């Protein structure tokens, strides 16, 4: 049976969510051989305003590239969480960065709270890799895209000198997700 899985990564500009979306789509399509679309939209100000990236992964060609029924919502700001939680399926997942999101939505979906930015800062040494930590958590929680594919996609996006740092961030995210299960 065919599947279609919809991710929405939301927060504010400068948090690297568009890049995270691209990496996820590239991992699925280029390295896992699935089909993927990735879209992005910014609020009025690209840096600091709202930012949203959607990724659809399917084992078949994708007939409609817009997300309509979210399977996984990542929220890096309270505003994004308040705005988008209603689009999540009953069987869906909401992952929030509890460094920024404190008021959790009510619903039948499953909510995971992880202080993603704090983890990136304390365990990896760089808050800016919070997006990569989040990718690790998402990869492990959903198992839609393989770990190896995401690693390859990360490596194709970063310079040689920071490969180790970014892979460490990704693996910290994987471990965090394993602890959540």
């Amino acid at each position, binding site marked *: 049976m065919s599947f279609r899985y919809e991710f929405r990564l939301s927060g504010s500009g*400068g948090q*690297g969510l568009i*890049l995270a979306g*691209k990496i996820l*789509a*590239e991992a699925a*399509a*280029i390295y896992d051989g699935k*089909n*993927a*679309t*990735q*879209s*992005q*939209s*910014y*609020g*009025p*100000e*690209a*840096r600091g*305003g709202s930012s949203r990236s959607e990724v659809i992964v399917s084992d078949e*060609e*994708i*007939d*409609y*590239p*817009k997300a309509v029924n979210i399977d996984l919502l990542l929220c890096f700001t309270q505003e994004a969480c308040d705005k988008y939680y209603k689009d999540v399926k009953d069987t869906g997942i909401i992952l929030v960065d509890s460094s920024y999101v404190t008021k959790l939505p009510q619903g039948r979906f499953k909510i995971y709270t992880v202080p993603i930015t704090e983890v990136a800062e304390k365990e990896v040494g760089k808050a*800016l890799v919070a997006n990569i930590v989040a990718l690790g958590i998402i990869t492990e929680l959903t198992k839609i895209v393989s770990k190896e594919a995401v690693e390859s996609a990360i490596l*194709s*996006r*970063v*310079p*040689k*000198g*920071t*490969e180790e*740092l*970014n892979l460490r961030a990704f693996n910290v995210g994987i471990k965090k997700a394993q602890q959540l299960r």
Partner: protein
Amino acid sequence: MYPDWLNYVDRKRQRNLAQILQCLSQLQDKKNLDFIVIGALPLLMRGYLAYKVYWDIDLLFRDDKGIREFMKKPKPKMLRIVEYDDALMVSRNITSFHTAWAFNRIWFNVDYIVRKGFFEFYTHNIDALTPYTESITVGSTSFQICLYMAHPWDIITEKVISPRTARDVELKIDTSVDLRHIFAIYTSEKTNMEFWHYIFEKTRSLCSEHEFKIKFLKILSSATELGYRDLEISPDSIKLLRE
């Protein structure tokens, strides 16, 4: 012909990209240029970038009206366009509109952009700008491409002085696409004096040559910190930037 750069496009998407570029070639008004391709794609197609990612197509228009007119332009019946935004996203200096194009069910992001003053920056020397012209064969089908794209030297000039690049350097964002492009173009052109003369001349329409040089120097001196430890910085280029 099968150009080298197509190897850096996901195999499943090559035909669709060629078909969309052919469509854009037909849509582009060559006599009264209505848009120009900017961003990473011209760098890929001109051989500056050599890695496989999901490439987007960025179209730069003269103004918001230009985007609206382009949206109304008749397009091939087989082409499907899905609009990601409900309306033009307008901010102080940038207007954008995000779409996805497909001739079948393989989607390419095509973003329509207006940046105050930059259409003129990229097209003022249009007579000297040669369109990318190629017949691309994918499988058994050939696609005719004739498309005005931003000159890579203009792209680096813009990126060096962009506030976004300054921020990426300041925050040491190793995943910065702009910095990656700057280092790629620099690597290819650093010993080419024609390049240096061109960008010093061209930057004058955006900022002073002195300011440009300072910014470029800062970017180069941050390369190692940003993860580009393999970047070979030519002493001659440093000398030029310090003059």
